[in-house]
């Protein structure tokens, strides 16, 4: 008993000394779960993908380390280079068109008119549908012989089009589907922005006799710019990795006219089972997305500076 009493202060003092220097921050145990999850589902797969991309890694055969040869193969792979081009065209079109149409429709739906709520609801319906289901319906609408689109064109005297069935028109036609589905999203974001704009600038513009276009160009547009950037960013990320609509409608065809990086990546990894090469494509694809995002952020930064400069 006495030993216990004597030893207790001693033990306490030896523990207390290092506690001051070495004790980790008290919050670290709370970080561990999140850290483990991030390591397991983000960092590890990434490192592993990079590792796979440095190997000749085919399902069913042994793997060998090959260094950067998968990346070198990319530079001389015409299908990959074409896919990069298709991805860029597809992305630019399916960001710009929904942005323009979404902004216009937001301006329209911001006005007060009868049945506005109902029409807004109708307008955002495409967004709620499943992309693959939509894609299958559009495929039949695009059918050059039996599709409803060519029938509608024939009513106004425009000759029948080949839509997704011709290499030259396939990407614009796919963008049409993408635009139809995602314009409402842009509209919703911009509508939120419009609701947040104060009314004073409009009143003074009215007093100064500004035209509708001037009001839109010099008041509305600058004020909703941050919202447009958000919408643009979301659209860009969605469009660049778009898969379901393209895959369900054309599978990258006709030929390889609508084969984006994502579609090609899918073929390489899951149809050809060439995981090493597929991983190399995935790494390059990731870098491309980072690059695009960086360009957008840079543009945004610049825009803010000019806003401030012109405002001052």
């Amino acid at each position, binding site marked *: 008993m006495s030993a216990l009493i004597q030893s207790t202060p001693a033990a306490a003092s030896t523990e207390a000394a290092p506690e001051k220097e070495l004790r980790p921050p008290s919050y670290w145990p709370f970080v561990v779960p999140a850290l483990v999850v991030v390591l397991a589902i983000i960092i590890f797969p990434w490192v592993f993908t990079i590792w796979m991309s440095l190997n000749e890694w085919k399902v*069913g*055969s042994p793997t060998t380390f090959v260094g950067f040869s998968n990346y070198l193969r990319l530079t001389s792979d015409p299908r990959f280079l074409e896919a990069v081009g298709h991805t860029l065209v597809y992305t630019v079109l399916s960001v710009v068109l929904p942005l323009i149409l979404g902004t216009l429709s937001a301006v329209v739906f911001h006005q007060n008119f009868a049945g506005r709520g109902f029409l807004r609801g109708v307008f955002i319906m495409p967004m709620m549908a499943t992309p693959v289901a939509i894609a299958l319906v559009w495929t039949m609408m695009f059918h050059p012989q039996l599709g409803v689109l060519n029938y509608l064109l024939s009513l106004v005297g425009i000759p029948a089009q080949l839509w997704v069935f011709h290499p030259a028109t396939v990407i614009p036609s796919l963008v049409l589907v993408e635009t139809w589905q995602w314009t409402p999203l842009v509209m919703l974001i911009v509508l939120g922005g419009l609701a947040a704009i104060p009314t004073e600038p409009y009143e003074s513009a009215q007093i100064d006799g500004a035209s509708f276009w001037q009001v839109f160009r010099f008041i509305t547009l600058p004020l909703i710019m941050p919202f447009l950037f958000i919408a643009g960013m979301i659209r860009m990320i969605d469009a660049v990795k778009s898969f379901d609509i393209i895959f369900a409608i*054309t599978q990258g*065809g*006709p*030929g390889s006219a609508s084969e984006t990086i994502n579609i090609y990546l899918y073929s390489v990894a899951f149809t050809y089972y060439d995981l090493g090469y597929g991983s190399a494509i995935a790494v390059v694809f990731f870098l491309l997305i980072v690059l695009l995002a960086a360009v957008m952020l840079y543009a945004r930064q610049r825009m803010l500076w000019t806003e401030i400069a012109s405002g001052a």
Partner: protein
Amino acid sequence: MANYNISRRTLLKGTAAAGALGLTGVPARAEVNWKKYAGTKLEVILAKGPRGDNLQKNIKEFTELTGIQVESEQIPEQQQRQKVVIELTSGRPSFDVVHLSYHVQKRQFEKAGWLADMTPFMKDPTLTAPDLVESDFSAAGLQYAKNDKGQMLSLPWSVDYFILYYNKELFEKKGVAVPKTFDEMVAAAEKLTDAKDGTYGFVGRGLRNANMTLWTNFFLNYGGEFLDAKGNIQTDGPEAVAATKLYQTLLTKVAPPGVAGFNWMESMASFTQGRSAMWIDGVGWAPPLEDPAASRVVGKVGYTVVPAGPKGQYSATYGDGIGIAAASKNREAAYLLCQWVVSKKQGARLLQAGGGVPFRNSILNDPEIQSGVKMPKEWLQSVIDSAKISKLGLPVVIPVAEFRDLVGAALTSTLSGADPATELKKAHEQYRPILERSEKA
């Protein structure tokens, strides 16, 4: 009642076998012991389609017969192929029995050693019914199921021949005879095409990859062979160029606009709406063509073999089989299931509904089964005739998908006016290293 049928059949067989064996003096115990693996549980992975449906619909009969419980799932073909490969690579597949597409997966499965050898099972009279013998399967089926060493790695389940579908009404209207050769087919298609009216002479797959299954009918009939003796691919030779020229002519001059993007679905839509007079595709489309709810050409469809080319007449053949995962712990029970899947009764059901064609001659040529076929007689005749001229429709290599994509893309390019020889050469240059890499590995 179903149970009664089977036991009666088994009894008859057993009696016959006993009689035959009695003459040779061997003890008459050579009867399949169906119940031996009662209580076993099997997992089956199936590609979605009439074959899978036929299995799932009647699986209770198998369980009654053997006492083996079967869990099965159907997944769309493309996804099923991926899932199966990924699981088999892992070494611990979740299934015992696998439905495979020979024309895509044969070589890959053999090289990786994913399937259990069935040869010893087939020789074991306590496991194999006497009517299931190798010689009953068609040549194409055995070519698909056996490896280089002659081992049976799966049982051939259903074969897909390519046949010519034609619209009798359009043919009569224009006074055109059913073509017997490629030249006649082109001439007929030209006569049947009336662009102003919106009807065309020919329709078929133009979409990359899918189009290869059509093109190979032309390639084979121009005397083409996919591989030479050393295993080099030969799809840039004169036969391939001639076949591609025919393909280009048909699909650009006498086919509906946009055919470059057509798979079987769009082609079938055009044909069932009476907008195309001829269609070459797999034999399995008779049910939708004869379904009044989906087709405007019910009762007007003619069925015949693919016309002859200058160097012969073949029907490009594809097929699927059913095999046992080498990693399965229930191989014998799995074998009983495979055997039941390709049994006479199941095969008859498949054929009679038009959902597939069994590889077994004893089913296809059985007059009683033939009389129960619900499809038109002409369809059945085209199947029987195609069986006689069947030839494998794709090269037996591992990178089949790359082959279909690259040569398929070349074909699609010719539909926008590119030169067949140049395009084939280009595809060939791209494909050769891929094939070499896969054979080397």
